[in-house]
């Protein structure tokens, strides 16, 4: 990666548009943490590709000086996969909400995890549909009353980090908007990781989910992981702990990335060197 300035400042990464989030929205802090990580990594702006879906959190790319693609609801991940597969030079980062990433887009996560493209996925978990003003999301806690569950939510809520572990993502972490320094560090690690990095970010919706993430209650339950568990089952156990909300890295392993796999296939297919399209015609003679 080629650097534009020796020591980029925070401002170097600020986009032209001002964030439109509500006052008190946790997403501001995530933006800050990301920029901090980018700064520390000295990412050249033009090599950052930010891809998102639809939701408050998906506005993220608008506020960063980078190439940004704000697509449709739930498809950020497969779009980003297309970006990375086709241009390995780019540092691809995805921003998605809990609804975007786990409800409508939930079918893509297991497959992208398997494919292991070198993408960093920021899942903004505010446990609510923010942009559409307060309907239940897959991570809304049981009993929460929402616009679409006026009598309180039934059923189990989803655990993003746990799922990512089950899907075999090669880097899985959980951070919180309210712990910006720590989050920034996780994002930095995620971007450095070669492969698919899944980072669940506990954030808050100050307009439509004020009860849930009442900061003091959650803060009490937050427990930083000392080290990354070696064992997959231990990681699953920690991620699904209901007493503590563990923050930190749950898994960090190596596996060929999508682009490495693709490179391998190419080499196998070109045993005797690359082929010209014209020469393929022989097979039809």
């Amino acid at each position: 990666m080629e650097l534009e300035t020796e020591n980029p400042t925070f401002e170097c990464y600020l986009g032209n548009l001002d964030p439109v989030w509500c006052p008190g929205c946790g997403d501001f802090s995530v933006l800050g943490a990301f920029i901090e990580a980018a700064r520390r990594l000295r990412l050249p702006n033009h090599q950052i590709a930010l891809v998102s879906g639809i939701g408050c959190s998906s506005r993220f790319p608008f506020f960063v000086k980078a190439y940004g693609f704000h697509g449709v609801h739930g498809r950020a991940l497969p779009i980003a996969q297309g970006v990375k597969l086709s241009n390995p030079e780019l540092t691809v980062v995805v921003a998605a909400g809990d609804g975007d990433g786990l409800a409508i887009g939930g079918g893509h996560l297991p497959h992208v995890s398997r494919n292991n493209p070198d993408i960093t996925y920021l899942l903004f978990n505010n446990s609510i549909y923010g942009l559409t003003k307060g309907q239940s999301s897959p991570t809304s806690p049981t009993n929460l009353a929402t616009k679409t569950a006026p009598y309180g939510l039934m059923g189990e809520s989803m655990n993003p980090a746990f799922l990512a572990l089950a899907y075999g993502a090669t880097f899985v972490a959980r951070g919180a908007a309210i712990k910006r320094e720590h989050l920034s560090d996780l994002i930095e690690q995620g971007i450095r990781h070669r492969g698919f990095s899944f980072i669940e970010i506990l954030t808050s919706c100050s307009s439509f989910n004020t009860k849930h993430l009442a900061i003091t209650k959650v803060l009490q339950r937050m427990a930083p992981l000392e080290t990354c568990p070696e064992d997959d089952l231990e990681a699953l156990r920690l991620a699904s702990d209901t007493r503590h909300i563990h923050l930190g890295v749950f898994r960090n392993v190596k596996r060929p990335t999508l682009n490495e796999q693709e490179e391998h296939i190419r080499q196998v297919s070109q045993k005797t060197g690359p082929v010209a399209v014209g020469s393929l015609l022989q097979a039809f003679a």
Partner: protein
Amino acid sequence: MSAQQPNELTLRIAGESGEGIITVAESLSRVAARMGFHLSTFRTFPAEIKGGACMMQLRLSERPLFHPGDFADALLAFNEEAIRANFDSLRDGGILLYEADIEAPLPRREGIASFPVPFHRIALQEAGNLASKNMIALGVLAQLYGFPIEPIVHLLEEKFRRRSKAVMENNRKGLDAGIHYAQQHLPDHFSGSLKMLPGPPKLVMTGNEAAALGALAAGLDCFFGYPITPSSEIMEYLAKNLPRVGGKFLQTEDEISAIAGVCGAAWAGRRAMSATSGPGLSLMSEILGLLSMTELPAVIVDSQRGGPSTGLPTKTEQSDLLLAVYGSHGDAPRIVLAPTTVRESLEVIVLAFALAEKYQMPAIVLMDQALSSRLETVDADILSNLPKFPPTEERGETPSEYKRFQLTETGVSPRVFPGTPGHEHISTGLEHNERGEPEYDEWVHTIMSAKRHKKLAALARDPLVSGLSSMFGAEEAEIGIVAWGSTYGPVTEAVELAIAQGIPVKALVPKLLHPLPHGELKAFLASTKKLIVPEMNFTGQLATLLRSTYRIPTIRLNRVKGVPFRAVEILEKIQEVAESAGRSRPEPELLESVGANRGES
């Protein structure tokens, strides 16, 4: 039921799936192509998972062919069912070769000569196994019509290269036994009917193979896809060959992920495509609209099959046209193209890439099962003279003033790819201003809607698409036909037949279906009094587009049989219209047009 044409031959081979019928027909096809013949084939795919009736027809001629023919000169049938199902397809004067074991009484018709051939017995006695039945058939047909044997042997050797020696030996035995049997028991007056042609040998490929090759020729970087009949072979060909030429291939978890991948790669500045069939195109609707809005190129092949829903997955139809043109919410411009032949499947894909890239919007290429799976000859120089690409990326001089969605005369804005220093910007499915920033002001939306649609108008004037429509027949005719896609083949023959009968008729087959080629169509329609629109769909989808665009009355000819039109079906309609014109019936009027609308056929 016309007589056999000189230096032309139509063979139909039928039996049970698994009996090796396709091998026979394909071998003869390839040999014929090497002899310099043009050819076109048609095959049915059993609906069931395994087993079921199987048939392949093969027509060869010294002139270019785009239709496997209405009637066969010879039918070779392995079982009774195969005879019953295909007997009617024999032309007068045709011959029937059938398994001698069949005991049931056979259908008869005057002028059809029938010859029992003991395929079964010979296979067991002379080749030693039942599996070589098809080799015997191959030998019989080769001998009967004078195909040169050596190239056949050569071909089989190539085909079975990876199998054990015994397999090829058995094949050889079967082939020889068939030749021998024919020499001894079958008439020899056909054997001179095929004369080796001058000219260079031709290539034989299916529409799907041609489409895949076209994509490679266009410089495809990335393919994303999910298997679906009848387009899977495009994907499978690319799985094998795209990495060989340096491209990237990804099988995704569904069609939505596939088109999302295409979208991502396109945004990253790479040439990307997917191939699917109707159900997949339906699922792609939403992201097709995103591509329109973010002004990204993409090529999507839809090999149509019988619908709606899962419908008739192995049968042909042309019923996704209106979905292709209108199938996204909002006013979402796209390009729709339809090749008519195998050769064109290659060319039109290249054109689709060029247009998609030049006008920065998705291009849907409509093929159909019959075209996708039929073998046809194409010239060996098929890769020369393909459409040229304009430069894709345009970096402004001053990065800071760069506007990704700048308003221009044609509506086309300068495109810069991620990774370019200083041109950072955002693309969004939200309405946006020239810089790409979301803006919902009423004028911004009005102006940007106009911008996006302007590109279609510019495209319609582009030399890349001028003269693209096929026009043929009697120029002065008052009866006109407008058709699309693979229906081109039977229309060419129907027009020929009609003219031969003294009925003047002309035809226009546009390859560009959206936007319609107004120049060509207006001139054609202006000189047409009766317009026939034959389509393999129920509601008359091209007819609907023509009426909404030109407000002309259409005489629909709709067939949803799952198989291509026969030329005679179209001929009959021409005759009917010609007669009614003679009797000067009133022109189809408002009322008829209403009745002809969806649902009242």
